[in-house]
């Protein structure tokens, strides 16, 4: 019987983290940011059917980068969790914070125990009734949760993108202006992304119930004009 080679825990974790990071960095990015009417989510995604950004519940949205089948599985779990909780208790008892914790646990669990970690980074966004109550939880492949303030960039490693967004972000921007800032952050310098390359959705603060709304290519083009 052959003996497995000894690998130190440090080495194993470092290898897994490197594997996840490299593969996530290979995918396309997304940004989420506050604007005057709520939260804007914009992703570089040429597909109009395989979404990076989706609705979880009345005021909660989900966004993921990395391996589609893996973050979509997490998205479905989130929708199921939210709908069951809202049915058992009440719609207002479904909160982004508890969902983000569950995602963190689930990702952390698979990072430590599975042979292959999940190659995803996800974002759970909740629009509050006040700007100060907006929540953005950025969850990494190893289960680490970051409570982001006002805006977030996924994957978190994209330093250049983060810098671009940080420099041009301002509080209380109109939707058109905010969208331009988001696209400038997502685009490589000198290669601006067009409406067809983008997936854009909003969490609208003033919505009576379901705050999530996708913007079509026409609407995006009109806003950028």
């Amino acid at each position, binding site marked *: 019987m052959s003996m497995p080679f000894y690998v130190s825990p440090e080495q194993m974790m470092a290898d897994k983290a490197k594997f996840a990071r490299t593969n996530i960095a290979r995918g396309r990015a997304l940004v989420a940011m506050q604007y005057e009417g709520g939260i804007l989510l914009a992703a570089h995604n040429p597909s109009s*059917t395989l*979404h990076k950004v*989706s*609705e*979880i519940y009345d005021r909660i949205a989900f966004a993921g980068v990395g391996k589609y089948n893996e973050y979509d*599985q*997490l998205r*479905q*779990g*989130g*929708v*199921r*969790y939210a*709908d*069951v*909780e*809202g*049915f058992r208790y009440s719609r207002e008892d479904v909160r982004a914070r508890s969902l983000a914790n*569950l*995602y963190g*646990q*689930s990702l952390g669990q698979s990072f430590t125990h599975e042979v292959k970690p999940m190659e995803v980074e996800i974002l759970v966004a909740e629009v509050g009734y006040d700007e100060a109550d907006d929540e953005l939880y950025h969850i990494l492949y190893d289960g680490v949760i970051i409570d982001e303030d006002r805006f977030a960039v996924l994957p978190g490693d994209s330093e250049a993108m983060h810098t671009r967004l940080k420099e041009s972000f301002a509080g209380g921007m109109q939707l058109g202006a905010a969208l331009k800032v988001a696209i400038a952050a997502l685009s490589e310098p000198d290669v601006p992304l067009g409406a067809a390359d983008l997936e854009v959705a909003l969490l609208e603060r003033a919505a009576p119930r*379901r705050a999530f709304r996708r913007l079509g290519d026409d609407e995006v083009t009109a806003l950028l004009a």
Partner: protein
Amino acid sequence: MSLPLYSPTDDPGPSFSALLRRLDGPAPPVTAAAGFEVTHGTTIVALRYDEGVVMAGDRRATAGSSIAHRAMDKVHPADRHSGVAIAGAAGFALEMVKVFQLELEHYEKLSGVALSLEGKANMLAAMVRSNLPMAMQGMVVVPLFAGYDLRRHIGRIFTYDATGGRYEETDFHADGSGGRDARTTVKLGWTEGMARPEAIQLAVQGLYEAADEDSATGGPDAVRGIYPTVATITAEGYREVPEDEVAEGFAALIRNKTERGLNR
């Protein structure tokens, strides 16, 4: 609860009730007949007009011969482009509406597209059918489903019986204890391609005549300011008709009856 993640071979799919069964196990069967008066909701109406459909329902709930509730809503949005109205055992009916709304939303979120109108109508039929054991013990729930068909660009109305039978009506329908009177009124006034104000007025009149003949149907309550729920469903979606517009409809109806000398 933990995050409900399933392996591909074990996935409950986009059905909310399948998910609940997976989490909670099957609901316990009800075996004994109820030995008490159950709260009932009464008259509901739906009719087609040029832009879509109008749905309306009175506000009274009864338990035997007493009034259990004066301001119950029987017309509810099912999703953006459809509505469901209920008559029958109120507790089960309201629960059915809640689960039905959730089923449609859950399906839409998980699969990324909304069900077709036909698909929604069939899903409701299955829910009525699953209530059959309760219906056998007198707790019948009869919904009325209507919506705007985004593929065919018309309003459509579906009715149900207690066994889950689903029937599509061409133009209008009314159900519940005052349903027969409301139906007759709507039948006499209905014409193809009615405009919104006439359609709303006809629904209001249907409910008025039902309340006139049926003790379990509530009429307009000017003292408390409680008027029937009326909603329209068009390409723009489900919209509740403002209460003062409904109140004005009743006021016009009463003026008309007085002028004709029917106030004696």
